[in-house]
């Protein structure tokens, strides 16, 4: 189907396998198909596009959204109901609590004229969550064709391999289809596909080449690469826009964009700063290190004494007990000054922030023991804000 190939790139063999499995409209297809592959390898997109283009009656469910069996079953039935009465008229909401009722109601709904002679497809996305739901759902769906005696096929889409799904006492084995990851050539082709119309395709392809050169060793996820491509393109075009270089001056463009991409890897890629902050950085040309990050590093604004309590806790956690005297005689005074009640509140708030955790039993009323759960980098950042050189006091660094 030529139209399909333009919309779905680099997936010809998977599409042809699916099409031959589906067969003609009224043919019975294989009862269950299991599709696995990496995230962003096109499983959801290809399945949805194929079913919509061929206009086959289908119901698309996401198992993260419908995390209990009741939600899942009711939604499937209601969507099917919509499909069969597509001429209009408000149909009542169907309730369904057990899989038994589901099978019964499913048989009733698929007797309708508009659904009778065709294969109905049920697609369950993120199927790995089915394993955590009721135990009879997964084997039941695998055999739905047999249990309902109707022309229905269930497709499971997941990242996790089939061997981890198989129940202990065996089940009906589905047809397993693998969606291979995109090769670097395919990634280049797909990413270059959405180039903005103001620039030429070659210019954008060169940009994608540079982007892949920096990020490919770290990440092959198409969604992330696309996000990074869109965010960083304005910076890449900057020399051309300002008139400093023309489209073919690859070396200048490269020198302009390379440090920027390296910084992107440390911030936007890790979601340390949001994409809107990143765009502002590009426009104002400020140093991203000055930005307030999204991570705990700079986000946590602790009051002055809480910071000292945290530093003391860190030192207490990491220094052996016998060295305490050596380090602490001078500073103890500072902590003793605050009243006891306030210290207690501050400790509880640190526990809520998960910077300290309770060690030992709850029933030790007279002396709860805490442990400090922050990393060295974090405590150094905190210590820097109070002008306290923590390295001098750490046993491991002597």
């Amino acid at each position, binding site marked *: 189907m030529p139209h399909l190939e333009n919309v779905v790139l680099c997936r010809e063999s998977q599409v042809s396998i699916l099409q031959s499995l589906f067969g003609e409209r009224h043919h019975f297809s294989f009862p269950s198909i299991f599709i*696995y592959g990496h995230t962003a390898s096109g499983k959801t997109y290809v399945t949805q596009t194929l079913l919509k283009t061929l206009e086959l009656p289908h119901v698309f469910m996401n198992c993260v959204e419908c995390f209990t069996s009741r939600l899942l079953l009711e939604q499937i039935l209601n969507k099917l109901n919509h499909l069969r009465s597509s001429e209009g008229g408000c149909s009542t909401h169907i309730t369904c609590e057990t899989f038994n009722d589901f099978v019964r109601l499913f048989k009733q709904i698929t007797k309708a004229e508009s659904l009778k002679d065709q294969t109905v497809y049920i697609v369950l996305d993120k199927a790995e969550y089915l394993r955590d739901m009721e135990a009879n759902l997964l084997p039941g769906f695998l055999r739905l064709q047999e*249990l309902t005696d109707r022309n229905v096929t269930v497709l499971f889409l997941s990242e996790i391999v089939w061997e981890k799904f198989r129940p202990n006492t065996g089940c009906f084995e589905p047809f397993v289809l693998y969606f291979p990851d995109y090769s670097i050539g395919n990634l280049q082709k797909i990413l270059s596909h959405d180039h903005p119309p103001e620039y030429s395709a070659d210019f954008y392809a060169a940009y994608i080449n540079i982007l892949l050169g920096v990020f490919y060793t770290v990440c*092959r996820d198409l969604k992330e690469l696309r996000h990074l491509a869109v965010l960083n393109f304005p910076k890449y075009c900057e020399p051309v826009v300002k008139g400093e270089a023309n489209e073919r001056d690859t070396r200048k463009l490269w020198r302009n964009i390379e440090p920027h991409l390296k910084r992107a890897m440390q911030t936007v890629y890790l979601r340390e700063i949001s994409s809107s902050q990143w765009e502002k950085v590009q426009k104002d040309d400020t140093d991203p290190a000055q930005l307030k990050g999204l991570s705990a590093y700079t986000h946590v604004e602790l009051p002055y004494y809480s910071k000292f309590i945290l530093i003391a806790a860190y030192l207490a956690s990491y220094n052996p007990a016998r060295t305490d005297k050596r380090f602490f005689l001078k500073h103890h005074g500072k902590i003793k000054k605050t009243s006891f009640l306030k210290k207690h509140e501050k400790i509880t708030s640190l526990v809520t922030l998960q910077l300290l955790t309770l060690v030992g039993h709850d029933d030790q009323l007279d002396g709860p023991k805490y442990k400090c759960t922050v990393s060295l980098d974090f405590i150094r950042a905190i210590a820097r804000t109070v002008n306290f050189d923590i390295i001098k006091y750490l046993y491991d660094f002597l």
Partner: protein
Amino acid sequence: MLINHALKELMEVEEVSENVLQVHLNGLLQINDKIALKEITRQLNLENVVGDKVFGSFAENLSFLLEALKRGDRSSSCPVIFILDEFDLFAHHKNQTLLYNLFDISQSAQTPLAVIGLTCRLDILELLEKRVKSRFSHRQIHLMNSFGFPQYLKIFKEQLSLPAEFPDKIFTEKWNENVQCLTEDRSVREVLQKHFNVSKNLRSLHMLLMLALNRVTTSHPFVTAADLMEANQLCSMDSKANIVHGLSVLEICLIIAMKHLNDIYEEEPFNFQMVYNEFQKFVQRKAHSVYNFEKPVVMKAFEHLQQLELIRPMERTSVNTQREYQLMKLLLDNTQIMNALQKYPNCPTDVRQWATSSLSWL
């Protein structure tokens, strides 16, 4: 399938079809006795069923059903056949009340009742309670695949041939001739022998044939030996190796670091910090500074591996330990890793060399 066939034959006897009632239950659908009871009353169309809804509580339904079944005797009431699919799941219900009652009635001189249970577990009798087991008639029919390879070949041929009722006669003849040639082809026999040695199961044969038939189109109208060989390869693919094929180079480096840790410490669980230190040992050799990524970037790759379930925490995530120090286990073994590395596209040579030996070269 066997049951349905037998039932169909039985129903053809006129006396039977007028008298006998059938109740079909499935362990996957009726997951507790309450639902099972409602389903039975629904299928038998007893008086407390209106349309599809069954009224009354569990105790009421049970007593009503038992009364209805007990009132008859061998001469005047309708016989009922109960067919319980996935029988082993029924044995997991609380107190096995349903099974107890059904077997009880079938043993006593009340309504003529036949209970047929279908299961794939051989040890089903051990799952039954003592009182239920004693009421069981201990009649078991084992359906085992006891055919040898020549018969397997015959089944292959039969499954693949088109039946005589197929509308296009010329095509049927050509197709069946092709199937005959395939059966005599040596490479096809090898493929089938390998498949047979792994599993005699007919369903796996169907899967193999399905994969081969997928390639039949109007331009390629007959199944060839090459199709069958490719289908066999697809069947025996290692899916974890496929997942490893799609990982980024950084993630592969982390897996190799974990492999070395496993070799040194003999499969003791490790945490992220240990893996990172091992990775740093590799990065700090002079030529490898291109892999010098920041720690959070390496952490993100590690978390991706966890999401793909290639590594798994030893215990559930607790607040008490930091993420970097949680103990994990690798769910791939060394041969899988080395095989996957062979097929990995554009694997940098230094990474591959590091995989084979963890000793540092200067």
